[in-house]
């Protein structure tokens, strides 16, 4: 069923206000098809009825199902290109300059919802390319954490399907990925920079030990949290970030109203949060 502009905007605003995830107009048909599935499952006839269901006392339960539909849980290498470009060309060189002056040649990066490891390994590849130049003699530590042990095991294994690797630039692919019967095997050169651990972002006693990161990524996870939990988790990220470090969320996410300490730094096609 075709969604009207008015219904689309109403549901978009609702999702944004609850989850902090913005649905661009270009994603209208995607949202339409996912909403249709939920409408069939719940027996609601119109988008308006479904909106009313979400706002009803039963809404919070339904919202979880909706989120599962609209946040495709898949992840892939080189997912957020504007973010990576900014990091590689501007934010990283700036940070390296600051730390060089301090004589502290160590870089720590945290992929805070690492899933099967694509984001953490993407960073590893990008940094490896700088090994001979910008990051010569630097210690590089990349940590991936997730609450789900199955995906952690996958991440440690480092074997991917064609979908996961489709966005990797050819030069990187040739260097760091070996194809074997439709399976794509990550080079040990990349793997050795990354460690994966189980971590629940809600668990304060463990979160306080995730110290001194230069870059923290947490894409498409906070959208599942209510505002109070979001604020708490983001405060941990804030505390665990170096004074000159950056925190990044996913491509259409927003921290508005969640934390007023971070400063938003805009760059072409995206932004990062600076301490």
């Amino acid at each position, binding site marked *: 069923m075709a969604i009207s502009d008015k219904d689309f905007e109403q549901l978009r605003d609702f999702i944004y206000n609850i989850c902090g995830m913005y649905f*661009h107009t270009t994603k209208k048909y995607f949202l339409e098809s996912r909403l249709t599935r939920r409408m069939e499952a719940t027996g609601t006839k119109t988008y308006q009825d479904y909106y009313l269901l979400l706002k009803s006392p039963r809404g919070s339960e339904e919202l979880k199902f909706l989120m599962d539909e609209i946040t495709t849980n898949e992840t892939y290498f080189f997912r957020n290109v504007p973010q990576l470009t900014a990091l590689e060309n*501007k934010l990283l060189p700036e940070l390296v300059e600051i730390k060089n002056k301090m004589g502290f040649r160590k870089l720590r990066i945290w992929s805070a919802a690492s899933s099967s490891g694509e984001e953490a390994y993407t960073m590893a590849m990008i940094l490896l390319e700088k090994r001979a130049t910008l990051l010569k003699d630097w210690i590089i530590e990349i940590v991936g954490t997730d609450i789900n042990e199955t995906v952690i095991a996958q991440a440690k294994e480092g074997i991917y399907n064609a979908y996961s690797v489709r966005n990797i630039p050819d030069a990187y692919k040739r260097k760091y990925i070996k194809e074997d019967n439709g399976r794509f095997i990550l080079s040990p050169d990349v793997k050795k920079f990354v460690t994966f651990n189980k971590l629940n972002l809600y668990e304060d006693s463990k979160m306080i030990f995730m110290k001194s990161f230069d870059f923290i990524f947490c894409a498409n996870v906070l959208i599942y949290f209510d505002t109070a939990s979001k604020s708490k988790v983001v405060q941990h990220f804030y505390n665990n970030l170096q004074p000159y470090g950056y925190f990044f969320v996913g491509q259409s996410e*927003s921290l*508005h109203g969640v934390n007023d300490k971070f400063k*938003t730094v805009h760059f*072409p*096609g995206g932004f990062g949060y600076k301490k």
Partner: protein
Amino acid sequence: MDKNQMMERAEILVGAVDDLPTIPVVATKVLQLLDDPDVQVEEIADLMLSDQVMTARVMKLINSPVYKPTQEITSLKRALVYLGLRHVRELALTTSVIDVFGGTSGALELNAFWEHSFGVGMVSKIIAQKIGYEDLEKAYISGIIHDLGEVFLSNFLQEPFMEVLEYIKAHPVKLIDAEAQLLGTTHCEIGLSMARKWNFPDAYCDVIEHHHNPGSATVDPILCAIVNISDLFCSVRGLNYGGREWISFNLSEEEAWTILKNKAPGLAQMDIERFCYELDDAVPDVSALVSAIFNSPEKAKP
């Protein structure tokens, strides 16, 4: 480089061009006529209709997503009534500027240039609205004409300007700094020099000169700050001249943002992230507007 030296150089460069386009006669007449307090809408409409291209441009602008009339306006007279005579001056000015440079090609890709300009116009109007700035159309027009000097550089200093564009591709410097370094002047001084030649109102001259340093504005620092912030937003969200220069910014460090927050403290609470995402959504509208203005046959009903 010294500001006065850059201004002198701009005057020389602009003065040296014999065939600097002029604002169409009709526009000048419209501007004169508007100074008459007893002027009637009919008189202005009749005069503008003698210039078919201007009429067509006005009709396209008025029906664009930026002005958003509730239903399509098809007659020039209704357009003028809808806008109010006070805004006709701005409209005549803009459409003329578009005319003067619309068809020419230089170092810049013109569609990308006008997409940026109209984008800055649109965002300027939105920000003007948010902070309670009194004249929204003025903000809109200011956005459209702020980079006028670039078109001059692109057309009349094509080769040196190409070098500037090449330079910023390889170096992480701002366009304006590269211009100062390689040309000895910038699009701000060049634009100001042109705007003076064309007798633009002072507030527009101010914007053209100070949209990169609104704190130095003398006529309307708030207007300059509006255009400055809009320029920054457009430069990171797809209305960025095809990404020709590396821009990154943090509002809390921007002088213009402080100026605007002093005027409207509520601005500090603005949902910047959402604003950026909405801007992404508006990019196709702006591209459509620009391509409607520049890439389609001109036709309009009286």
